[in-house]
């Protein structure tokens, strides 16, 4: 086993690197030169051309593109990866998550954590589960790696919050029991492929 990490005792020393930028103009003459340079090139009008064209189309040709969000919402692709949902088993209503910890492990933003324990029924119980949406980058790895199709991405994409860290717990994400009938399978990332039945090999069982 490599012992390198145990030998590095310089905890807290950061590696900062300077970007290779043009220096800011300092003297009045330099600032004046910069303004003249930018004005003479007429860069401004290149952009304004597009703006005027679109304004004309919208006002006079009836080609308005604006959706009146939040009153209107565009339909999003089923493959879109928004706020996670936790699914339940349709038959029993029990949560699907088995607490294997794969989502926690694969999460590259390190925003998923779970606590598990040995419960009274000799099963692995997920006692707590959180996702920090302040850190989540919605890469979809958790949904893809989940062996039980328990954690999936939903369609709720409003993730703004008042604080950087915004945690969702297990209960927040689970399908409410009274809406179990409306729970639908997720067709996006990590879903079972359409021809899964043909691909699978059956395990012989003697009963």
């Amino acid at each position, binding site marked *: *086993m490599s012992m390198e990490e145990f030998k590095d005792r310089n905890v807290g020393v950061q590696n900062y690197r300077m970007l290779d930028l043009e220096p800011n103009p300092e003297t009045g003459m330099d600032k004046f030169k910069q303004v003249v340079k930018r004005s003479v090139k007429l860069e401004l009008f290149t952009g304004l051309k597009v703006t005027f064209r679109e304004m004309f189309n919208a006002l006079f040709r009836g080609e308005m593109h604006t959706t009146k969000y939040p009153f209107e919402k565009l339909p999003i692709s089923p493959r879109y990866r928004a706020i996670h949902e936790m699914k339940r088993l349709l038959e029993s209503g029990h949560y699907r998550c088995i607490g*294997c910890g794969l989502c926690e*492990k694969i999460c590259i933003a390190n925003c998923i954590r779970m606590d598990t324990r*040995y419960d009274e029924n000799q*099963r*692995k119980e997920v006692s707590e589960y*959180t996702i920090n949406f302040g850190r989540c980058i919605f890469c979809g790895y958790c949904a893809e790696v989940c062996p039980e199709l328990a954690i999936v991405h939903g369609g709720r994409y409003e993730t703004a919050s008042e604080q950087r860290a915004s945690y969702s717990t297990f209960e927040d994400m689970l399908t409410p029991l009274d809406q179990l009938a409306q729970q639908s399978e997720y067709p996006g990332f990590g879903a079972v492929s359409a021809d899964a039945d043909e691909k699978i090999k059956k395990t*012989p*069982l003697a009963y």
Partner: protein
Amino acid sequence: MSKNEITIIIDGKECKTQEGEYILNVARANDIFIPAICYLTRCSPTLACRLCLVEADGKRVYACNAKAKEGMNVTTVSEEIMEERRAIMEVYDVNHPLQCGVCDQHGECELQNYTLELEVDSQSFAIRDTLRETKNWSSVLHYDAGLCIVCERCVTVCKDMIGDSAIKTGKRGGDAVDKAYKETAPKDAYAMWNKLQKSIIVPSNGTEHTNCSDCGECTAVCPVGALTERDFVYKANPWELKETPATCMHCSSGCQIYYETRFDSIDNTEEKIFRVKNEWNYVSLCGAGRFAYDFENRDAKKDPQALKDAVEAIKKAKTIRFNNMITNEEALMLQTLKEKFGVKLYNPYARAYQKFMEHYAKESGHNLYPNDYKEIMQECDFVISIGSKLRNDNPNARYAFNNVQKMNKGSALYFHPVGDKLIPTFGKTVETFEHNPGDEEAVLYLILDLFADKSKLPKAVVDYLSKFHETRKKTIKEKVMKDVVEKVVDKETGEEKEVKKKVPQMVEKEVEYDYNLLVERVGGDAENFNETFEKLNKKKTSYALIAGEDLYYHPNSDNIARLIALIEKCSDMKIVFVPPKGNSMGVSLICDLDDEAEGFTVGYNEPGDYRLSALGDGDIDMPAINQQEGTMVIMNKRVVPTNAALEYNGYELNDIMNELGVGKRLTIDWTEELPLEKGFQKVKFDDLPNHYLNDGTEVRGYELSSINSRAKGTNPRKIDDKTALKSADIAYRSNPQRQFNDFTDKAHQIFEKFALYASPERAKELGEKVEVTINDKCITLDVIEDDRMSGSIVEIPDFISSADVISLFGDSRYAKVTIKRV
């Protein structure tokens, strides 16, 4: 045992090895992969999995139990072999629950690994499953029979290494395998399946619970998630734990361990140790090593005022009292304090050993014992243990003692005043002697008498020994065949015939024999000892002596040292000692210890007027062993490093040293300064490795070199008759099996209490609670029955430093006591 160097060829690669080595071990040592599940390196082959099938000189053999022969040509892979192995893995996968997701082994599961390695992607066998219940075998062991593949590694390690033999295979009650498979399945797979369908693992005492030392080695060797530590079940996943290589410091074995850490939980993101792992092929842990890991000093903070007070206290101190739960570096710092400020260093746990080793060095000419435990396990077939309560003092000495019985068809003599019911179960040729405490000189004379080369012994000793021999007469019963004439009537003809017959008859006969008074003195059956010893000594070639802690506390320890030096000189016996618990070897080499404490005392994890403590209860906090870097000297005479597994935010001893102006930048800067004249080397801490190689080579730190001088070899004195304690009530200072110090006691999975331990009969006499008076001091203790003890001597533990039991006992491990029921 003969050890001839031979060469064999495995898959075209020439491999050098020793005669008698198993092919599998040769392959592993040479980086050739042969799959095997059931084999454990230092135990006997089980032949349960049959995966290690190879071809040796064209014949199919199992690599784990086929011995290498000169010029042997081994092929590890062929089409038939792979077919056989694949079928075996298919059988293992039959009805194995598909719950890898929740299993505590997933990611490091050998069933997963071999299923993938042998490319099992379909299943051609099936059988009706049997309900197998999950059981909690003890306070620490959890067995999920549903996951068990009955490789019997747990059974093997428990028998061959640990010696408890607490588990065995039992009835599963499964269906018989369909005979039709006999045609279609490969031979080995079918045979293995038949056996698998019949068995699961059960406690061998016939109950639901194991009666063992709770070492948890069975959980370590389990290739699947069937046997796990109760505390770890479903708590974390193996692959999210961070491994920190370290050294266990509870006893003097200094086993290599890995602390496995992770954040505690969602609510508490501090790092926490979840479990301890070991390289179970090369090192076996005890219950303290495996379960006593959470003794860290968690909430330590840097309080400058406390540091100032500590500096003042040390300046004022006349004595620093400490124990062996410290690293070599810290010991060196304390020694520096002694040199600079003239404080006394008081460590009663190491002082006796240090004094004894000084005597031994003078007599034998070297300051370390000549052999180590690894040699004993590999080479010896006759071990003698004296002065050590093997079951409690040092688990690895016990494992070596047991391993020799099981692996080398060994014999053993066990001398100890406290009767132990476990030791005789190690083998049929283990003879135990319960001698009087303090009579160890007689035992050593007996060993000289039995094993020393009389021509090398000094004449005085030979003469002295001959005085113990008497010729006595005894009557023995002998079988004699006698001729008897019987009259038999033939049924058909009616004729009477005389038939001569030989009939065995027992005849009493008087014979002369050599009666050894020493055997009688040490509590043996002197009348039949000659025959017993002959049986034990049959075909034995290599002998070992394990000398334990009682000897260091013997009133005539100088004479004991002489006797051991003489045994070493006059016999080819391998000699090892059992150093007292903790880093006693390091402390005794580095520190110049004093006999007594006086004046203002600073206690380091020990009682004192000012206390430095890693337990969190002192005047200033110190890091516990799992929070600091450092080295320790282990009983295989190596200086090994240990790393910090957990964060520590308080001050270290080095900070106090810095305040005093004698410190270094880091604690580990002291590693290079360890005294060269005591056998240490000038090596940086970061250059010390801590791992094992595939062939079992211990690449840990460096080997301590022995300092040689001219051996004095003084003739030993005669047996001192005054030292033997003969009293009704004797107490022995000894800890329960998984307790060594305050730190093991702090751990949440160690349940052994601080109490008086006694054999069941004695415990009944004593009742529930007693008041014990030792050397005019009183201590009140609960009575706990230890069903593996026998005899009347009671044990009083010393693992809680605040109880200061070691001072009660003074310079001895045995004491006459008065016990009063409370």
